[in-house]
């Protein structure tokens, strides 16, 4: 996850990124309808 955090310019976005994954991994169950990098055809290679 650290790699992704460094990819964003904004410190606020780096802080927000993955905050729920860290503290609330159960929320991943809600992923239905949530786009993931794996699913995106044109994912950014940051």
């Amino acid at each position: 996850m650290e790699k992704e955090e460094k990819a964003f310019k904004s410190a606020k976005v780096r802080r927000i990124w993955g905050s729920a994954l860290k503290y609330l991994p159960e929320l991943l169950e809600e992923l239905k309808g949530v786009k993931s990098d794996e699913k995106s055809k044109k994912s950014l290679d940051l």
Partner: protein
Amino acid sequence: MKNPKNLLICETNFVYSVILAQDRNCGYLLDLASEKKIDIAIPEFSFLEVRGKIGERFKRREDKLRDIISFLNELMRSEYHKRTLYDVKEKLKQLYINSPKERKEVLQSAEEIKSLCIIIPHNAEISYRAFLRSVANLPPYKNGDRQIYESILDFTKDKGDYDLIIFYTSDKDDFNHKEIRDELEERGIEAYFDSGNVVQRVMDMVIS
């Protein structure tokens, strides 16, 4: 030459994509918003949905932990189990104690997303229109999605000062309907269901 004004409208799954570190494209778009290169607007209703889900998940975790700790207490009436289970119980207790602090941090993250976006307000009239939509059997068919969609239609009524307006959702099943595509097109809103395509479209505008 005047810089083009770009508005990206997202909904609940955008917030989840970021706080669950699932889609870097969404993180990148939020980065662009923080640099004021684009505006991102998200319905108030979406933030309430996220808040409700986070609260519910933490409560469910706390309830489960309380049950397990209570069961461990019963087992630990025997000396044998007391020796083997003491560390497990202490760790679970710590998890239970930390729960409110962790909940606060996750909720704070959602608030920080808010601070980078325009919040699309919700009101009784929007709810009424969503109700009428259900009576007319028009998509989206889930109540939450209808509320979100109607708030977006209301918000974009007077957004003529933008050069580009995009509606992005990864929820293709619930939003990719002809009626919705036509309604958005009438308002000059481009609909996307792939975040990579959104990044590409936005970058074309930002660079031009």
